[in-house]
């Protein structure tokens, strides 16, 4: 009997090893920590698969004005209510219609600094009517006006070559981050307007993030600080992972 050089089993093993070989060296440095949790390992597998198999800069579907639907405000809806450490600070900014609000841009950018709401509104604006997809299972279509995050990072001198992640800090005391592929995506904006008006407080005033290719909770509300880093920062007890939630939610 002739010895088969390529059996089906060998082909399958070689295929699996090949896919693993493609995924692992490219991403192992930049993967979120799993703390040995098998669920977080599954999230990481999904993240690596999406980053390897999906085109990097494809746009989500945009809708027309008549498609706009009612929009529940969930999570924190009034950060000035005294329940958070930054409540007092937020209440003062709110009473001054956010004229004193500053967005601090720090870390691995050419010239770290801060921006007022007026500064952001002077930059080229982008409006987009997109679907907000909540992990709970509901969806809502809303129109957003804001400035692409890539332009804000550019205005802060641009990201340095060793930049890997963009970390966000909110007035309701959460810390979250996205990778550069999402950060520099054309539809990733810092939104200050919703459905043709100023962004309402329940939806994240004065400025919220829109990360359209992930679940709603990645589109952080009430942003006041952005830090560009060269390594993964899980946000500790204020971040997703240590609270038992997936960091990557493109699914």
């Amino acid at each position, binding site marked *: 009997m002739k010895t088969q050089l390529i059996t089906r089993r060998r082909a399958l093993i070689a295929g699996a090893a090949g896919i693993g070989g493609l995924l692992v060296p490219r991403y192992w440095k930049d993967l979120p920590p799993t703390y040995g949790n098998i669920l977080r390992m*599954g999230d990481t597998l999904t993240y690596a698969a999406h980053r390897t198999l999906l085109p990097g800069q494809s746009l989500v579907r945009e809708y027309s004005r008549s*498609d706009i639907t*009612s*929009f529940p405000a969930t999570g924190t809806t009034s950060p000035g209510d005294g329940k958070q450490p930054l409540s007092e600070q937020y209440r003062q900014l709110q009473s001054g219609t956010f004229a004193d609000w500053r967005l601090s841009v720090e870390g691995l950018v050419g010239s770290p600094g801060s921006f007022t709401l007026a500064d952001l509104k002077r930059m080229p604006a982008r409006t987009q009517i997109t679907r907000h*997809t909540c992990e*709970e299972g509901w969806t809502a279509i809303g129109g957003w006006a804001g400035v692409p995050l890539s332009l804000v990072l550019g205005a802060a001198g641009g990201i340095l070559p060793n930049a890997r992640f963009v970390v966000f800090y909110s007035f309701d005391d959460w810390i979250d981050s996205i990778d550069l592929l999402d950060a520099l995506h054309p539809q990733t904006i810092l939104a200050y307007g919703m459905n043709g008006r100023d962004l309402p407080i329940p939806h994240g005033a004065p400025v919220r993030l829109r990360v359209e290719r992930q679940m709603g909770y990645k589109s952080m509300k009430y942003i006041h600080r952005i830090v560009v880093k060269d390594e993964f920062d899980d946000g500790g007890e204020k971040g997703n992972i240590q609270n038992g939630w997936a960091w990557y939610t493109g699914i």
Partner: protein
Amino acid sequence: MAEVLRQTEREAGPAAHARWVRISHWIVAASLVTLAVTGVLILMVHPRLYWGEAGNDLTPAFLELPISRNYKHGGWENRISFFQDSSSPVSASRTFDIFNQNGWGRSLHFLAAWLLVIPGVVYLVAGISSGHFRFHIWPRAAELTPRRFRQEVVDHLHLRIRPATGGPQYGLLQKCAYCMVVFVAFPLSILTGLTMSPAVTAAFPFLLSGFGGYQSARTMHFFAFTALVLFVIAHVAMVVLSGFARQMRGMIFGK
């Protein structure tokens, strides 16, 4: 390969379940149980189904399932209209805590989905290349007669079940059920599941247009799951009725 399979069966009598069939059967079985449990858990967080792209607590539902306290939604405040007209969509803030175990529920669902997709692809490739689909699963033209079909339905209704052979010698209804599961219910579940991923639909927008929107895909995902659960109930019942020990031996040890 297919030729070899046919020849072996002629010479050595009824074939047993091939090893790759047995392995993929049990991995998919474990995955399906996990997907069903976590799927219900995820649905309990928002037990309302819709048609189209968008749907939420402030819009009408196509179907409401009384499976968690989130079903009794209410307590929304700060209602504001986005536009001037009276039919304008609104914003409202939630005033109550909801049941939500999605932190682990969703991640376990997706982990189990990987355990379905990877053996599923191996099963499809092996099923085609080995002739398993052609000779065991797909009904032959000769047996697809109305008379035969009617006879099998009557036999099943009277619980006249053929004793198990412990191998892939399937009846006509059995073949039809397996075809529906392998070629319709599983692919539909996987595709509607992928349609709920914003990263996947950014890359492949035809999924959204094909299923008529995110919430339509979610609703179809639920009905495909329901069909699979009904299949599993019937499948287990038939295993018991046709000889539980013989069937388990066949699917575990292949003899």
